[in-house]
Structure formats: structure tokens, C-alpha cells
């Protein structure tokens, strides 16, 4: 720091200092929740204070990430922070380009509602003294994974997500919590090994861990023997993280067993780290790998069909939405796999909207479980409880419409954008290429109908069928979790369904940015100039 100031002329030094302070913005969404988690741990004996502190921390952190998104979007330049002022390829870089900033803001926005739900939840797990610190660690890890520009740092952040998610599930009220946590930990450890092997292979081939530097070196020399191996290993990691079909088996169990505020976050934003990984992999690291994109389209379609059918056959509301996540992630992967400017924009939009909808639906399922005589979202228990929860019924109906993609909800906008990108791609290509778009488009349409089927199945089971009292002492509880968070989220869904233009513009800008990887590379590697001079 001092060296740089001494060498540069006075005026430049001042503006450089100012610029450096602005770059600190990139790390705020990570550092605020981490610090907040440490302080929340100190407040473990005073539950009310700890909860209030955690919620305040989350709000502050969201404000920082929203401001970061605004700065990145309005200035048109990525905000890049070099940790400890080590120049780019050697130190750890935190780089917020438009994609990362959108993802970070999305994660933290949804997490604000997750905290809001936790504040009003009746779970015993929420009263656990480590709940809020772990929840803050989860959001820090997730945001960090999306903002980091260093592939090993990505591994560390993913591990933070895995460990905090596992512990949060293990303390769940559900008696199968530890079992689900164990299952998840085992599988995500396998993902971790794949990621580490991939990182090692990339490092031995290209001698760098910085993603921008890697992208430049891969573009210069794409014929290294270990490169395809590394790409496959990274792809497997991200597939396990985002529960793509052959690697999905942990996901429904894990998302059913965790406490409601946590499972709402796991199924909506935590799986998006894999989507983010694929977006970076196919646009920044190996934009030339067509086979990877084709694989994504195929697996996405399999996921859409499998997830939809799986959701239609479940016996538990939470499990149904966990399966539905498989299908929705499939939609996003098809968008990423097509790789046209419009379809990438649609994929990012879909990511955002799905996060809002899915967290709402899981919160509503959790609400019904909290009203039911026994705390579970199994259909046999919550059947008929809807009669005593009319407001939740209205919210569930609107949320279900959003999930299936019916206007005026945001689900409609994201599906429309995806369809439009497919149709547009058809128009410019010959017959053989056309088939790669028409077949998915047809299946997307069918899957939307499957979505309607399972949402209405749940609606009928919960709101239309009578409540089956098995014994006289079995009564519906008069009060459940607070409906504030899902209500607000539904309002947001409707707002983004009617007033979608800014979001569409934002995602299209992001798609234009990520299609020019050299700009990202320059932004990350170019910042060292002030230091070297």
C-alpha cells in the first residue's frame, strides 16, 4: 500500500486510494455475514438479541450487495478487489462482474426472507444457539463462492456452504435430520474430491488458480492433456451441487429433512452455486467446449421430465418441491446449454425467479407442517389442514401458478424468455440444428403441464379434502409459523411478473458481459497496474 502511494504522483495517488476504497465494496457481502456470525456466536446466551442481531446483519449485507450490483451495473465496469493488495494472478481475487453481482444480490435478497421466516418460526431448531451463526455462515459461503475469482477459494467457500448446511440439517426437528445430513455430507465430500482433483489438474497444466488468468492461458493453449479431465471433474462437481439428474439422489431427502427456513434456502439458492459454476465454465473457462453444452441440454431435459414425474408421485409436500427443483434446474441448464445471448439471459432470469418462487413454496409447506398435529409435511398428515389456513391457500395458489409459469407472475416471464430464446435460435439455423431446439421446446411445454398437475394435486389434497382426525386429541394447532415472509415473497413474485422490464434488461446486459470473457480477464488482471508502476 505505502509503496504504491509513494511511487504514484500525488493526484493519481488520491484517486487511486479512492478507487481502492470503492473496490472494497466487492468483499463487503462476504465479510459482513462472516463477522456477524462470529459476533452472533458470542451472543449465544441471549436468544432475542442474537436473532435481532443476525437479522440486522443480513439486512446490512443485502444492502451492500444491492449497492454493489447498482455500482457494477451503472458504471459498466466490474468491481475487483485484490486481497491484501497482492497483484492478480498471485493473490486471491474477489471479482464482481454483472453475473456475480446479480447472483450475490439474489442470494442475499432471498436470504433476507429466510431470516424473516426463521424469526417467526416455531421450530425447536431455530431456537438452537448455533442456528443464526450457521445461517449467516451459509449465506457468506454462498455469496463468497459466487463473487470469488479464485478457483481454490471457490472450493473453500463451497466447503463452508456444505458444512453449515449439514449442521443446520442435523439439528433439524425432523427425526431423520442426522441421517439426511450424513447422506448429504458423504456425497458432497465426493464432489469436493472431484473439485480438488480438477483444481490440481488445472494447476499442473496451467500453473495458476486465478479464474481470469486460467481463462487466458486455456485460450492460449487449449491442447493440454489434463484439460478435458479437469473440465469433466469440475462439471461433475457442479452437477452434484445443482442436483442434475444422475447426481440428484441426495437432494430430495436432504431438502425434506432440514428445518423449513433452511430447506427453503437450500432448494432455492444453494443449488444455484452449481448453475453459477456452469455459467462460468461454459462462458469463461472453456467457451470452446461444445460437448459440455450439449451434455447440459440433454441432462437438463432428462431432469425436467424426471423431476416433474418424481414430484407428481411424492407423498410429502416438501419432498414434492424438492423434486420440482430438479425440473426447474433442468430448465436453467437447457438455457445455459443453448448458449445463445438470449438463452443465457433467460437462464439468469430463470435462476432469479425460481429462487423467489421455490423459497415461497417451501415456506408455505413448512407453515402447513407447523399447523398440523404432528410436525411433518407428509400429505397423510397435512391433508385437510388447509381449511384452517385460507390465507396460505391463496398464497399457495399464486405460487403454484408462478411455478407452472402462468401470467401475471414472474414464472411466466422467465419461461417466456426461455421459449423465446429457443424459437429465435430455430429461425437462424438449418434443419439438423433446428431439431436440437424443437425437441427441448416441446418437452418444456409438456413439463409445464406436469408442473400444473402436481401443484393442483397438492392443492386438492391440502385444501379440498376434509381433515381426517385419527384420534380425539389430534387437533390442528391454532398458531403456526409466521406467514409474513412467504406473503412478501409472493408480492415480489407478482411485482416482477408485471414490472419485468428492468430485470429483463439486467439479465440481458449480464449475458452480453459474460459472452465477452476477455473483458472479465482484463478487469481482473489489469488492476495490478497501479501496484507495478
Amino acid at each position, binding site marked *: 500500500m505505502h509503496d504504491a502511494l509513494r511511487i504514484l504522483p500525488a493526484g493519481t495517488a488520491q484517486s487511486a486510494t479512492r478507487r481502492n476504497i470503492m473496490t472494497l465494496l466487492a468483499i463487503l457481502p462476504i465479510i459482513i455475514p462472516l463477522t456477524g456470525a462470529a459476533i452472533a456466536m458470542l451472543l449465544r446466551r441471549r436468544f432475542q438479541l442474537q436473532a435481532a442481531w443476525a437479522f440486522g446483519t443480513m439486512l446490512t449485507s443485502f444492502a451492500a450487495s444491492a449497492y454493489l450490483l447498482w455500482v457494477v451495473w451503472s458504471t459498466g465496469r466490474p468491481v475487483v478487489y485484490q486481497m491484501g493488495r497482492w497483484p492478480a494472478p498471485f493473490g486471491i481475487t474477489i471479482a464482481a462482474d454483472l453475473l456475480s453481482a446479480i447472483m450475490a444480490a439474489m442470494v442475499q435478497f432471498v436470504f433476507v426472507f429466510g431470516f424473516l421466516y426463521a424469526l417467526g418460526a416455531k421450530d425447536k431448531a431455530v431456537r438452537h444457539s448455533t442456528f443464526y451463526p450457521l445461517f449467516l455462515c451459509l449465506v457468506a459461503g454462498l455469496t463468497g463462492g459466487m463473487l470469488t475469482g479464485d478457483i481454490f477459494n471457490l*472450493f473453500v467457500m463451497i466447503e463452508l456452504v456444505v*458444512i453449515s448446511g449439514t449442521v443446520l440439517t442435523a439439528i433439524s426437528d425432523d427425526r*431423520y435430520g442426522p*441421517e*439426511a445430513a*450424513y447422506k448429504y*455430507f458423504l456425497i458432497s465430500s465426493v464432489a469436493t474430491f472431484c473439485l480438488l482433483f480438477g*483444481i*490440481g489438474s488445472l494447476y499442473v497444466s496451467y500453473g495458476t488458480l486465478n479464474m481470469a488468468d486460467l481463462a487466458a492461458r486455456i485460450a492460449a493453449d487449449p491442447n493440454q492433456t489434463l484439460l478435458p479431465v479437469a473440465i469433466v471433474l469440475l462439471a461433475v462437481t457442479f452437477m452434484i451441487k445443482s442436483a442434475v439428474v444422475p447426481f440428484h439422489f441426495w437432494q430430495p431427502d436432504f431438502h425434506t429433512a432440514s428445518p423449513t427456513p433452511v430447506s427453503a434456502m437450500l432448494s432455492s439458492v444453494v443449488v444455484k452455486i452449481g448453475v453459477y459454476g456452469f455459467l462460468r465454465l461454459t462462458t469463461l473457462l472453456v467457451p470452446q467446449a461444445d460437448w459440455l453444452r450439449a451434455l447440459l441440454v440433454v441432462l437438463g431435459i432428462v431432469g425436467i421430465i424426471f423431476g416433474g414425474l418424481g414430484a407428481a408421485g411424492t407423498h410429502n409436500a416438501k419432498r414434492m418441491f424438492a423434486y420440482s427443483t430438479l425440473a426447474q434446474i433442468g430448465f436453467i441448464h437447457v438455457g445455459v446449454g443453448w448458449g445463445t445471448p438470449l438463452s443465457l439471459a433467460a437462464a439468469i432470469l430463470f435462476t432469479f425467479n425460481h429462487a423467489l418462487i421455490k423459497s415461497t413454496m417451501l415456506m408455505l409447506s413448512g407453515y402447513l407442517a407447523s399447523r398440523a398435529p404432528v410436525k411433518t409435511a407428509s400429505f397423510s398428515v397435512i391433508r385437510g389442514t388447509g381449511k384452517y389456513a385460507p390465507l396460505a391457500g391463496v398464497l399457495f395458489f399464486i405460487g403454484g401458478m408462478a411455478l407452472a409459469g402462468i401470467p401475471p407472475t414472474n414464472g411466466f416471464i422467465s419461461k417466456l424468455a426461455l421459449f423465446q430464446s429457443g424459437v429465435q435460435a430455430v429461425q437462424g439455423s438449418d434443419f439438423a440444428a433446428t431439431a436440437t431446439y424443437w425437441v427441448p421446446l416441446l418437452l418444456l411445454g409438456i413439463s409445464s403441464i406436469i408442473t400444473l398437475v402436481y401443484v393442483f394435486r397438492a392443492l386438492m389434497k391440502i385444501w379440498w379434502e376434509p381433515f381426517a382426525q385419527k384420534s380425539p386429541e389430534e387437533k390442528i394447532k391454532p398458531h403456526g409459523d409466521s406467514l409474513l415472509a412467504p406473503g412478501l415473497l409472493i408480492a415480489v413474485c407478482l411485482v416482477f411478473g408485471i414490472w419485468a422490464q428492468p430485470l429483463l434488461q439486467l439479465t440481458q446486459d449480464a449475458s452480453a458481459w459474460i459472452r465477452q470473457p476477455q473483458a472479465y480477464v482484463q478487469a481482473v488482471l489489469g488492476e495490478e497496474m497501479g501496484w507495478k508502476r
Partner: protein
Amino acid sequence: MEILKALSIGALFGIGLYQLLRRNIIRSAIGLAITSNAVNLFLLSVGAYDGVVEAYAKAIGQRSDALPQALILTAIVISLGGFAFVLSLLYVISARYRTGDNDEVKGLSH
């Protein structure tokens, strides 16, 4: 030396994967630890392909790369914490089901 390293990584990975897939949940946790060591050894060999002397030694061309060692340190710390947590989970599960057999631990399937 490289052959030896490659063989031992392969052997460790094979043993770890085999244990990971066993029916006993405690064996699978031990498989996790063995596999993580295989990965760490792989990372070590990534940096030390022609390392004869320690990092930052003066002899050019012979020193190992120090970075993978830092990576291994991070990975070891993380896997240590994870392994301790997994053992505590195993304690809870085996106390509840009174068995370590994977096929008996199936409360989630219904």
C-alpha cells in the same frame, strides 16, 4: 519417485473408494478419510514434480512449488473438521438404529 507417488495415490484412492461404497456406515466414513488423503497426496505431487529441495531454496529448477502445500494445509483443516462432524453424526445414527448397516438405516425412504 513419481511412479511410486502415482501408484500410492491410485492405491489410496482405490481403497478409499472401496470403503466408501461398503455397507457399514463407519467403514464408509473411514473411506472418506482415506480418499481425502489420496487427494492431498495428489495435490502434493502437483507441486513437487521435480522438487528435491524445499521451497524458497536458492537452487533454481530443483525447488518444489510452495502453493500446493498451502492448498493441502487448507484441505486438511477442512477435512479434519468435516470428519469430526461426520463421526458425531455416526454416533447419533448408530445409537438410534442400533446398527451400522447401511441398508437398515433407511428412515428417509418413506
